């Protein structure tokens, strides 16, 4: 064993000893004493208070500014809602009469089929039709349309904003340098952390939810835009100068069109992230399918929860396939001629169907709204199914749960919580010193000190415990899956498809089956996190293994290595940096999921955020959110430094 290795083994044993001694340690060592706590949540609350009530930009106050932004978003959102959900009505409440009905279900489905055909072919069109018909037949139409309306507003905002910022970052390296750490932070700060201040600034409701959604979904678009513009071949850039393009011409006629296929990948990301966030943001008033799930989870109405969860899945699959097809299609120019109607037969058809079904719907209501009598509810089915499973397999499920809980989860939790906080700070700082010397050590020290002074030490350690265990389990499952996927083409396809599906689903969805089977608690939270965070562990491992130069493997084979030896001696060490980055991503996803698992009752930082959300306590929410971010940043930097070192050792330049 290397010297480093023995030092760390020694430190681990010392930690174990300290944990065993915990009951005899002084109280100040276990929990940071009140004397060193700082009232950060108080400061944040006061700051926000000042911001909302007194701060001005000179001509107008912050409050007026937020109102203005809200109004700007509300207008198109209301319009979309009118078109898809509400229609134009007169009067309020029960006496409201519809003047113009929303677009009929038949017309929406027709539009989706047309979009599918446009994006790829008749098969995609049929798939879109089936998926949306599912929503109508199984009674999820209205909620789905509310969610769709949010997406329709959030996605263009995210795309346009991302394009603008990404282009600015491409054009101005200074702007890029300023924005890059902000994007980093936005991606490490868990989603919930945005919700609290936004809730405070914009109030409860769809607008706040939309803003949170856009903030969450935009960073990848910014990154992809900058990357795609940078990736435009140098010759094309020189060409644009040589023909005398002005700055605007260069961007509009050369750079953006050439980068379009890459940009569309970003659009797909924005759509999927928006869907994910719109679901989460139902906690601050987004409504729609997310709200249904949330509500069902709160009331433990399993049947309804599953129904809405399946509807979200259906929607996610539909939007993902559609936007991926559109992305592939991008850059295929059209050469149609003839009149507008001739050139746009599908659009014409859709418009016609909207008008006709709208009119016919006035006399035949089933054309307008899918009839209640024909709806199929799966609620009872799911409830029965879960009941059956629980009745018949209760013992097995319970013993499985207890096995892990008693032997793995709880001991780890007890161990971590028993460690004195100065000791943890010292260990993390030492790790920082080992991997990245002074600067990293300093960062680790500062962030752990922050955690110690927030008064949330126990919650932070609970977060570390839950996240850590989930990541270890995700790695134990994911890395072998990745290896398998890389070694065998068929397995690669199957696993790839499985992972793709896992990644398409909004994080909420994972909670439903888990809670059904294992009820609330740490164990359910852990399983949901593992499911959600599994994908990158598999992906990066497979990618790392696949991208090893084939000569290296041939060299091993020529030396007479067995397959196992090739794997252990060549492929795994070479893939190590990638595997580490995969673990890094897994940690990030796990942390962002923790806050959702607060719904199932874990007592960690997520719970703090959730509670703050319920009581609109900005300070507490922000501090808890930033604490999660601090943990994320420590993990991120340590692992990135480790991966870089591994890379340097293998002679690969980063």
């Amino acid at each position, binding site marked *: 064993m290397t010297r480093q290795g023995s030092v760390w083994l020694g430190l681990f044993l010392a930690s174990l000893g300290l944990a065993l001694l915990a009951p005899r340690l002084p109280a100040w060592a276990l929990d940071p004493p009140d004397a060193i706590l700082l009232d950060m949540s108080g400061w944040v609350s006061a700051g926000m208070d000042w911001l909302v009530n007194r701060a001005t930009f000179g001509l107008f106050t912050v409050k007026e500014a937020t109102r203005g932004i809200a109004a700007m978003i509300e207008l198109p959102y209301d319009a979309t809602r009118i078109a898809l959900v509400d229609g134009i009505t007169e009067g309020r409440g029960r006496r409201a009469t519809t003047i113009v009905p929303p677009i009929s279900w038949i017309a929406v489905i027709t539009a989706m089929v047309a979009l599918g055909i446009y994006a790829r072919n008749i098969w995609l069109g049929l798939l879109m039709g089936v998926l949306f018909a599912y929503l109508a037949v199984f009674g999820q139409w209205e909620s789905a349309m509310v969610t769709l309306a949010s997406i329709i507003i959030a996605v263009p905002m995210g795309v346009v904003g991302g394009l603008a910022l990404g282009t600015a970052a491409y054009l101005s390296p200074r702007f890029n340098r300023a924005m890059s750490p902000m994007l980093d932070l936005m991606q490490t700060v868990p989603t919930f952390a945005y919700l609290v201040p936004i809730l405070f600034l914009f109030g409860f409701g769809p607008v706040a939810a939309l803003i949170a959604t856009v903030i969450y979904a935009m960073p990848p678009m910014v990154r992809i835009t900058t990357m795609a513009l940078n990736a435009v*071949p140098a010759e*094309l850039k020189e060409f644009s100068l040589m023909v*005398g*393009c*002005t700055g605007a011409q260069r961007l509009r006629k050369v750079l953006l069109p050439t980068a379009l296929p890459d940009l569309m990948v970003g659009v797909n990301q924005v759509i999927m992230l928006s869907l994910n966030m719109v679901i989460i943001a139902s906690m601050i008033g987004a409504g729609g399918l997310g709200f249904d799930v949330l509500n069902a989870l709160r009331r433990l109405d399993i049947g309804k929860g599953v129904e809405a969860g399946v509807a979200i899945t259906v929607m996610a699959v539909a939007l993902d396939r559609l936007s991926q097809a559109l992305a592939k299609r991008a850059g295929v*120019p059209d050469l149609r001629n003839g009149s507008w109607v001739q050139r746009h037969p599908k659009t014409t058809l859709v418009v016609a169907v909207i008008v006709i079904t709208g009119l016919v719907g006035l006399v035949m209501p089933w054309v307008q709204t899918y009839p209640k009598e024909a709806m199929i509810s799966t609620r009872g089915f799911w409830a029965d199914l879960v009941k059956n499973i629980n009745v018949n397999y209760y013992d097995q499920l319970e013993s499985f749960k207890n096995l892990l809980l008693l032997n793995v989860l709880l001991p780890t939790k007890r161990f971590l919580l028993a460690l004195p906080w100065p000791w943890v700070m010292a260990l993390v700082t030492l790790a920082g010193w080992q991997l990245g010397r002074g600067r990293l050590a300093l960062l680790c020290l500062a962030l752990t000190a922050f955690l110690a002074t927030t008064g949330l030490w126990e919650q932070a350690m609970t977060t570390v415990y839950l996240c850590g265990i989930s990541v270890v389990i995700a790695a134990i499952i994911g890395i072998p899956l990745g290896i398998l996927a890389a070694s065998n083409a068929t397995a690669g396809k199957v696993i790839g498809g499985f992972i793709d599906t896992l990644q398409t689903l909004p994080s909420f969805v994972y909670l439903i089956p888990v809670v059904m089977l294992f009820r609330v608690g740490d164990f359910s939270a852990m399983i949901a996190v593992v499911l959600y965070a599994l994908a990158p562990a598999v992906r990066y491992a497979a990618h790392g293994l696949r991208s090893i130069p084939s000569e290296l493997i041939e060299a091993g084979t020529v030396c007479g290595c067995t397959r196992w030896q090739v794997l252990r001696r060549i492929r795994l060490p070479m893939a190590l940096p990638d595997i580490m980055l995969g673990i890094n991503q897994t940690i990030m996803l796990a942390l962002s999921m923790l806050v959702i698992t607060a719904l199932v009752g874990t007592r960690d930082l997520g719970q703090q955020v959730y509670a703050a959300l319920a009581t609109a306590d900005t300070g507490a929410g922000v501090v808890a959110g930033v604490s999660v971010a601090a943990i994320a940043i420590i993990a991120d930097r340590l692992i990135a430094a480790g991966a870089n070192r591994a890379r340097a050792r293998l002679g690969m330049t980063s």
Partner: protein
Amino acid sequence: MQDRPAKLSPVKLSCRHVWKLYGPNPDRLLANGAAPSLDDIRRSNHVGAVRDVSLEVHEGEIFVIMGLSGSGKSTLVRCLSRLIEPSAGQILFNGQDLLKTSDKDMIEIRRHRMGMVFQHFALLPHLTVLQNVAFPLEIQGIDQKTREVRAREVIGLVGLTGREDYFPRQLSGGQQQRVGIARSLAVEPELWFLDEPFSALDPLIRREMQDEFLRIQQKLKKTIIFITHDFDEAIRLAGRIAIMKDGALVQVATPEELVMAPADDYVAAFTAHVPRAKVVTLGRIMTPGAAAHIAGSLPATTRVEDAADQIEASALPFGVTDDDGQVIGHVTGRAIIDVLIGRADAAANGGQSWGTP
């Protein structure tokens, strides 16, 4: 090209003491017109991509730049077209200092008077052949009808009529490069830069493209700066060739002079494998003075390769005439054979050795 450099035609583009250094602080190295040595540059962690280059390109000339990979050819051409800002020096286009030209004027000059053909074609993937060729005109703000008429014209010139509605990815490499050439011709530039335009093509298509290029040049008589790696290509096309090494010019001369009188071992090595008959002209191997009886007469600029058959077959020598048609010497079949089989003393006339490395 068979023409000697057009010595009499005016200078189109010239550059004086142009430097391009990459590294931490090029300005410091070049402060006050200093001329750092290669060692100075390397020791201070800079890369001397272009070092102290001065040259003149005349109107109607094909000026070829050659050199090993990394010798600074592309960088020089990009400095000349100001795609890269030189670290120091002066670039005169029609007497106007390009480095002092405002961005706005630069756009005007590039729109109307300069063109460039790229090694990897640089076609816009989302536009058809027609739209690609018309693109520079679109940038100039010319209306769609006019620019499409013009685009069809140049597409015809490069032999791609009928493929106007294809997209770049539906064309072969050679066809794509034709589109690149047509596109840069569409604006009728006075000065035409070509950076290894045929290197990405296979030998057969390359040859075909060179013929095409010569045909077009015969018609249009542009001033051309052409980069290539391939000495055969340089010989076929060039009036003069500039050889670069480590960013500096080693020699600027006609192909014949390069072969017959290389400035140093580097140039000699470069030209070692060139068949002499391809570059040596009658003027160099002739015996001065008229012969008593001649079978006919040929210009002094004729290359041995092109006249060999004719002269060798005849019993009598051929007269050699200068640009004005005055007979200035004569060549015999024997002199031709000396060149063809590489007999060393064949060069005795010019007083040089063969310059074998």
